[in-house]
């Protein structure tokens, strides 16, 4: 990233505006990323990378129009990408180096459920994850989710229903009876 590019961006947004944008939305992004990845380190990286990318390029029109929705979608996509990238890396690793299930420490049932839930969430499409996180991490009502995502309350109710059903099927496939 060249200095020229970085400075060019400053024409679009001053430092104080950038800080204001960060302060207004960092909780939303961090909580979303943590809700999807379950890792504070990953969530912190995602928060940083999203704003770093904003420094590195001109601001998209969608960001100006509805910064909260734009950054929220960015958080969901970045979180899903992060999990999927990690999964690919694990699959590529030498299977002999992975611990066998027999050597894994005993895990509380609720931890197992959380892991399987997160795994199932990572297999949903981004739209489904968006509505689920707004409901279950941010405690939004159907109406608030609809307003945030620019759609109707009825659509959100259907999306939530289908997303939960899909999630249930995915968890069942992984051996959890929701």
């Amino acid at each position, binding site marked *: 990233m060249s200095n020229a590019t970085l400075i060019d961006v400053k024409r679009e947004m001053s430092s104080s505006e950038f800080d204001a944008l960060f302060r207004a939305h960092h909780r939303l992004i961090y909580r979303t990323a943590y809700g999807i990845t379950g890792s504070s380190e990953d969530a912190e990286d995602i928060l940083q990378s999203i704003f770093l990318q904003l420094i590195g390029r001109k601001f998209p029109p969608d960001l100006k129009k509805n910064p909260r929705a734009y950054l929220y979608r960015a958080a969901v996509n970045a979180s899903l990408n992060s999990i999927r990238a990690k999964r690919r890396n694990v699959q590529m690793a030498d299977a002999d180096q992975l611990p066998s299930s027999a050597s894994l420490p005993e895990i509380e049932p609720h931890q197992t459920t959380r892991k399987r839930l997160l795994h199932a969430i990572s297999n949903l499409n981004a739209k489904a994850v968006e509505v689920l996180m707004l409901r279950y991490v941010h405690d939004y009502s159907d109406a608030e989710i609809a307003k945030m995502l620019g759609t109707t309350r009825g659509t959100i109710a259907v999306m939530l229903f289908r997303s939960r*059903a899909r999630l249930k099927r995915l968890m069942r496939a992984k051996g959890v009876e929701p």
Partner: protein
Amino acid sequence: MKDGQENINEILNRHVPRVSDEQADAVGERVLYRLHHSTPSAQVERLFEPTVPQRTVIRWWPALIAAVAGILVLVGARVFFRTPSSAVWVDNTPVQTLSDGSRLEIRSGSKWQLETASDGLRIHLNHGSIIVTAARQRNGHLYVRTRDLTVSVVGTIFMVHAGELRSTVHVIEGKVQVRRSEDEVSLLPGEEVSSSPFVKKRINLEVLSWSRNAPSYIAMLSQTPSAPATEVKPKRTFEVTSIRPNTSGINSGGLRVVGDRLQGTGASLRRLLWYAYQPGDAQFLGTQILNMPGWGDVDRFDVDAKIGGEATSVPQEQIREMVRSMLEERFRLKAHRAIRELPVYNLVLIKGGPKLSADQTPPPEKQRYTYFGTEDQMLPRGAVRMFESPYRSAFVGQSIDIATFMSLIQGRADRIVLDKTNFTGLFDIDIQISKDAGPLPPPDTPIPTIFGALQEINLKLEAGKANLPVLIVDSVQRPTPN
């Protein structure tokens, strides 16, 4: 909503990871700091912000600014900020070096000014927090003033916070003098004082969490034996304690007094902390213990401790204190209590609330008990029969008040439940609640979750947030061998 949907709803409510505002803010501070300091453009901005209207300059002469920035970066920010300091600064630059070599870390949003005094430098902190790493003062002093406190130092690290109602000073290293009107107090590392009350006490490490150097400050403080502000009473301890890694795989679910001993099989660290740090009569869940290490929920321990004397006559609070001593000694535990905003459930009425019992006469206090046993036992008004099976809990009772009902459902919820019903009547209950049974096969007849069961009697649990007492683990290790 169908039962399957209710269950997945409950799993999501219970298991989706959440963080508090404080945690998110602490991370936000770190990330914003890194964003400001990790790119060349940020350095440009930081160096020019106090004097140059950067937006205009950068718009017209980007190449020139970049070049000048490069030079200034090489020369170093210290040179820039060593300009005569009689001028007043009020800005948000996170770290600044003063003309005497002292270093300020400024929490974002803080309002402060600097001026020269006859005998040194004086920082006026109007609002917010700063951490001062004071250089050794040769001929003068460095003062920090808030609305109600004055701090004078010779060479040390300390934090000052100016709030709406009071100011506080926290010492990390060295010694500072703090004055409030005619009163003056000396603070040593690990001590803090506020303007009201003006009494020394142990530092609360949480206040440093916004600093990018928080880990090193906390490490410094953890190595410093802080002088306690008040007389320390000798701690109650067990006569003999045995803690062994659990190898049997048996989990008895908690600690219990057996004879003159406190025993537990397969107890996790969280379970021990939960037992030891319950705050009085308030509800306290395992989820209110924060910053647990990964092994804290996985490793299991068998605990056998001799209480001494007539154990049955020892108050529960004294036994808890003994467990706290055991954790501090054997697990090297350092922890503190705080208040945090956490998810809760608010119990609210729907459709006017539960149907009132025919008899609204309050039952005598002695009749308000919970009976654990067979289902054919006749119970008086006010009493509740509770029946547990591997996959369900059942509650049956007549003329129950909302407080009794709250105590029943609290044990079935993974969050603190707050009564928001304002319901004063008596009502009858006959409900079953399914358990998160895991691998057990589901019963033939569907049993509602707690959410569904409450709706049957026109009550509802709504997700919300509230400030709750928490225990924050600062550091802990696996137990030392017996």
